[in-house]
């Protein structure tokens, strides 16, 4: 009979019903954290994919670099994990953004954002970054301390306070990005370029520079996401594949060009995964979730809130 903590005070006849609620609570909490992680990782991609329509296969590697830098900065900076965390929040997006800038200028612009060529080029970039990370940082997984540790002790199980902080931080970041896109001139320029590139050029908008800025911003955002997330997981040179896949799924289900869509998709996928796997074996739950994603796209290819380009 499944129970949670030794010495559960309730008698066994009601235990099955009451054991369900803590399970559900845990699944919902974990699902919320998963949704936050998904939304954060996908945010940068949503921007880049939505505005520039390029598939950046190295997106996951930008995430990995952000995580590795978080570990490295924490090692270099004296003064405890909190100092390291803040320093990483500044250093990681700067360095990863710089890499994105170089990539955009030297590579993407030269191949004129041709879809197929971009895929091959970014696959090449992915290999390069992975190998460099392996050579520089080594092959082992690296733990990064959270800036603070606080265990929320519920009657049935304990939960990490930092994880909830990540949820709050992600909401904050998402709102900030939304505000920039919806309320500032920069955001307007980006949305116009996404909507119709030719018309934007006709109106004097330097589309190439906008693309540059968007690509760099996307990379910086994903690096920030990585710094926030890595204390919950760990940094490893092959960790980029999972965020890459999940980000693409979230962005496409949410609908290209819609941050709101990405967020909602992240919430649905994050929560659903947690709850479904309460009832099925985890591998079976993954199979179901994967097929569900496929079927959503089959019947609604533009995603939930997709904006068709002209």
């Amino acid at each position, binding site marked *: 009979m*499944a129970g949670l903590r030794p010495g*559960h005070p309730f008698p066994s006849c009601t235990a099955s019903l009451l054991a369900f609620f803590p399970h559900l609570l845990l699944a919902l909490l*974990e699902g919320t954290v998963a949704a936050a992680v998904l939304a954060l990782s996908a945010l940068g991609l949503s921007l880049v994919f939505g505005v520039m329509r390029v598939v950046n296969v190295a997106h996951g590697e930008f995430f990995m670099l952000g995580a590795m830098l978080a570990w490295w900065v924490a090692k270099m900076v004296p003064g405890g994990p909190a100092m390291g965390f803040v320093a990483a929040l500044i250093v990681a997006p700067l360095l990863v953004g710089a890499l994105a800038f170089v990539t955009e200028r030297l590579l993407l612009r030269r191949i004129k954002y041709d879809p197929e060529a971009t895929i091959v080029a970014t696959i090449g970039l992915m290999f390069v970054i992975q190998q460099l990370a392996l050579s520089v940082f080594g*092959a082992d*997984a690296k733990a990064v301390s959270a800036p603070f540790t606080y265990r929320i002790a519920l009657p049935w199980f304990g*939960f*990490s306070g930092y994880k909830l902080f990540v949820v709050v931080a992600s909401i904050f970041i998402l709102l900030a990005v939304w505000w920039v896109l919806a309320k500032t001139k920069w955001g307007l320029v980006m949305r116009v370029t996404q909507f119709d590139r030719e018309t934007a050029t006709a109106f004097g908008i330097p589309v190439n520079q906008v693309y540059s800025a968007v690509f760099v911003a996307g990379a910086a955002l994903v690096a920030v996401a990585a710094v926030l997330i890595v204390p919950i997981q760990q940094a490893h*040179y*092959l960790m980029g594949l999972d965020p890459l896949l999940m980000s693409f799924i979230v962005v496409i289900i949410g609908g290209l060009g819609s941050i709101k869509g990405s967020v909602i998709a992240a919430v649905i996928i994050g929560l659903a995964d947690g709850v479904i796997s309460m009832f099925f074996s985890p*591998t079976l739950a993954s199979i179901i979730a994967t097929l569900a994603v496929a079927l959503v796209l089959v019947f609604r290819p533009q995603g939930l809130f997709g904006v068709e380009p002209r």
Partner: protein
Amino acid sequence: MSTTKLIVPEKKRITRRSALKLAGAGAASMFAGPGFVRYAQAQSSEPIRIGFQVHKTGIGAAYGKWYGQTTDAAVKLINEAGGITGRPVEIIAEDDATDPGRGAEVVEKFATQHKCDVAFGTLFSHVVMGSAPRAGELKLPYYVVSEGHHVASGKLNRYTFQPGITDVRSQVISMAPWIAKNLGKKVTMIFPDFAFGYDHRDYFSAAIKAQGGDVNALIPIPPTETTFSRYFAQIPADTEVIYHVMVGPAVLTFVKELGEFYGGSHPPLFGFIDSLESVSLKSPGLEFLEGSYFWEAYPRYAGAKPTEFDTFYRGKVGVDQYGASVSDANDVSTYSHMFGCWETLYIIKQAMEAAGYKGPDDRAKLIEATEAITTIPEGNEHPQGDKIFNGKIHQVFGHQNITQVKGGVGELVYRTTIEEGMYEPEADYTKMAL
């Protein structure tokens, strides 16, 4: 055309052969002396080429690095002592990217392009499974350092051996008696949902039953999983021992979340050091492991009274008493696996010398000589401990160790006998044709 005038009696005729023999003897006698006798006896000074299939990239990269370091140390030592059958050993390393398809290609490369005498060093089970068939077809003696059960199971071929490291079945069943006696009889198993995990699940379940115990929950975790809290909720309240054998980078998260979930009071934990090879037990987030137990093939902490062989081995490979690199205390080695490379190389040496190995034509003799090995004494060549090799299933058996984490360091608590890890052989490779 014969020239009768120049008939010289046979015994006096100096033929080229006899002249050479004379010259050779002269040369040999010039070099006579303790160290040089071996070289004079050598058939040739052509090196013995050993193909080293190593996981330099891919998920096995952390192991690959240490396998390489240990191999280099062993080969250096072997060559300093005169090599194998008097010939120097040359290692040809190829990266298989921890991929079975690439592993098979690497084996082909060793056999046909590099013209290696033997190949060795593969670790990950799925790579062994993908590569060994090719070795068998190409008749290349293939000495893996994998700890998988596949060699002993009879599924592979007569050219594949595992003489330097014990297999997972042996490791798992030898743990059951101690766990049942000292920790508890109701065990919850948390394991990865693939072949390696199934081996643990199947063998341990049977073994603990034989001790009068029982597995009260089986929790398989998909290999791609990144968050584990929801699985802990399935652990029954009356569990006496949590047995975990998670592998991969996510282990750090696993332990962290286990700690967050349980807080202070939790059932005793028994894990396998595979989870934390090359990771320091003092890493942030692993504080929860304090007081927990681990299986270690070869304890990374040397302890208060290490054997002279262990100290010698650590010195040569370049690790300190905590199993970390002497140049970087944070660079922890894969101590419970890499000794397999060292010991396997010495077994290759032993078998080649017993077979009088001269070249690839002697491969069949080499196979038979390897199969003939029985007891392997502890020593500089086998620092992990004495072992028994079963030539029929091509698998070696040895001591296993249980350590307890105290102050971030694993202190030895129990060392099993070799018999505790033995099981009935399931196959007999010696009956197969070569």
